[in-house]
């Protein structure tokens, strides 16, 4: 059968997380800091809304764009929190997670060979999604000494005449990198000059611990050329519900809807009902979770530094991204060695692109008790590596 698989699928690289997952999933008693989703269960009132919707027989298709009630609440939420106003009738589409929204947007925008800029290290699906849309994936480097923020100078260096789209994920998985207003303004100016469309994945934007999140869509002249992408997975601990959304120019939303209606039809109605409840009554619960992530971040970064690992302070999201070069081993050897010696799982930074070389991603979306134990083990592991190097 292999010979029948499409060439562009065959040429997709294997996910750097996949083989690691295979090993970890077979091991017992592992403390995993390798999980990119909240450890909190979805708040009960949101789950209960889904149960209630099921009881009420809400088991049918919705509009391709999603229920109008949810789209209205999304528009209110986005206007209140991101200072951009959208029309629920034409400017919003509900998708199966942000991942589907990204896929739809790329397929709607990219002609074969168009260039798509994206910053690295980044979420594992960006480069493959671009390849699946027959675009040219063009990485932009971000750096630890800069808190993995995005600089217009680096975008300009990577830019080529075929570039049509700039993908941004701020705050960023895996680095927790963010972008201040000044940098965003410079990026916006560059996007206008080069006529770039911006796909702005802001899935972690509620989980900001230092500073204020600004959406690039809210800057003057940027709403028209920005597709604002967001969802419920991270802030409301609703990963399994698979609800994301995109807000943008009605022409782009219409084009995305064309693909969505033939491939997905609509996002599941029960999950849409749950998402509506999250927007109506979920803000307080979300803040409680954010406060706890904040304390966990401080704990993990402090302990990593005490263990001799250089680690920038992620301003947002729930990942620490320590540099392990000082241990004298590669990120892959560090991760596999840590798993074998101490049964702690972290993800090698190269799973998120080549600029993740020398780093590992450690998610702090796990309990204090587990984090404390994991940090103790990581410290012991790094000390053992150090003493081996000395001998």
């Amino acid at each position, binding site marked *: 059968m292999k010979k029948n698989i499409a060439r562009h699928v065959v040429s997709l690289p294997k*996910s750097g*997380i996949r083989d*690691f*997952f295979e090993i*970890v*999933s077979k091991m017992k008693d*592992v403390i*995993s800091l*390798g*999980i*990119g*989703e909240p*450890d909190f269960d979805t708040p009960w009132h949101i789950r209960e809304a889904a149960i209630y919707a099921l009881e009420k027989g809400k088991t049918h298709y919705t509009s391709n764009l999603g229920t109008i009630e949810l789209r209205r609440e999304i528009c209110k939420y986005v206007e209140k929190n991101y200072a951009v106003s959208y029309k629920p009738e034409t400017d919003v589409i509900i998708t199966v997670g942000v991942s589907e929204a990204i896929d739809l947007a790329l397929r709607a925008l990219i002609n074969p060979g168009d260039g798509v800029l994206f910053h690295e290290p980044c*979420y*594992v*699906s960006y480069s493959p999604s671009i390849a699946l849309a027959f675009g040219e994936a063009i990485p932009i480097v971000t750096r630890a000494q800069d808190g993995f923020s995005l600089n217009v100078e680096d975008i300009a260096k990577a830019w080529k005449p075929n570039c049509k789209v700039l993908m941004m994920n701020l705050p960023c*998985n895996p680095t927790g990198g963010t972008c201040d207003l000044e940098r965003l303004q410079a990026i916006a100016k560059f996007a206008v000059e080069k006529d770039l469309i911006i796909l702005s994945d802001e899935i972690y934007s509620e989980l900001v611990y230092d500073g204020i999140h600004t959406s690039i869509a809210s800057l003057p002249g940027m709403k028209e050329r920005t597709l604002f992408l967001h969802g419920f997975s991270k802030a409301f601990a609703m990963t*399994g519900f698979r609800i994301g959304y995109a807000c943008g120019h009605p022409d782009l939303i219409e084009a995305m809807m064309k693909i969505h209606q033939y491939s997905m039809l609509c996002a599941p109605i029960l999950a849409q009902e749950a998402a509506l409840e999250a927007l109506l009554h979920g803000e307080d619960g979300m803040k409680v979770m954010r*406060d*706890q992530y904040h*304390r*966990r971040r*401080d*704990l993990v970064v*402090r*302990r990593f530094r005490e263990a001799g690992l250089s680690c920038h302070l992620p301003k947002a999201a729930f990942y620490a991204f320590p540099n392990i070069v000082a241990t004298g081993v590669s990120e892959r050897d560090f991760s596999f060695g840590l798993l074998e010696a101490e049964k702690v*799982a972290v*993800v090698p930074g190269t*799973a998120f692109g080549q600029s993740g070389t020398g780093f590992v991603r450690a998610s702090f979306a796990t*309990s*204090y*008790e587990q984090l*404390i134990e994991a940090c103790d083990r990581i410290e012991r592991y790094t000390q053992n590596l150090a003493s081996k190097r000395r001998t």
Partner: protein
Amino acid sequence: MNPVLKLLIEGGQLSTAQMAVVAGLSEADVNKHLEQLKKDKIFLGWRPVLDLSREAVAGAAVRAVIEVRITPERGGGFNRLSERLSHFDEVESCYLMSGSYDLLIFITGPSLQKVASFVSEKLSTLEGVLSTSTHFMLRSYKEGGFLIDAPEQASGRLKVAP
């Protein structure tokens, strides 16, 4: 806010040593904060959350909730009588309520008779108590934030995820 108080409000089950690591303090500092919270009468003490239905002897204990109507006093309102009632060992908790009664009292006793006699002999006979309405608890579904008899669920999370 006191960093230790933040962790207490979160409702976790951290030991003082773990609190120290999370808050970035020494354990001695955590204990100092706890002492200060005690002095400020914010932190009143530790209590275990138990499901005594699983323990044969202790499980025979009877728990009841009593709605009490009382007469407020000139100058003291409801406080004097409420404080007096709260001193009884049988009373676990006592709250002044809005609505059709004044006090809601949670009590525990070794048997139904003991609880009944506490209500009829001690509580009802106090001057100022107008009426009582006693409700015996039949079964507990949640205690102090813990679900009782809920099936243990393995975490549905994958061990590694992007």
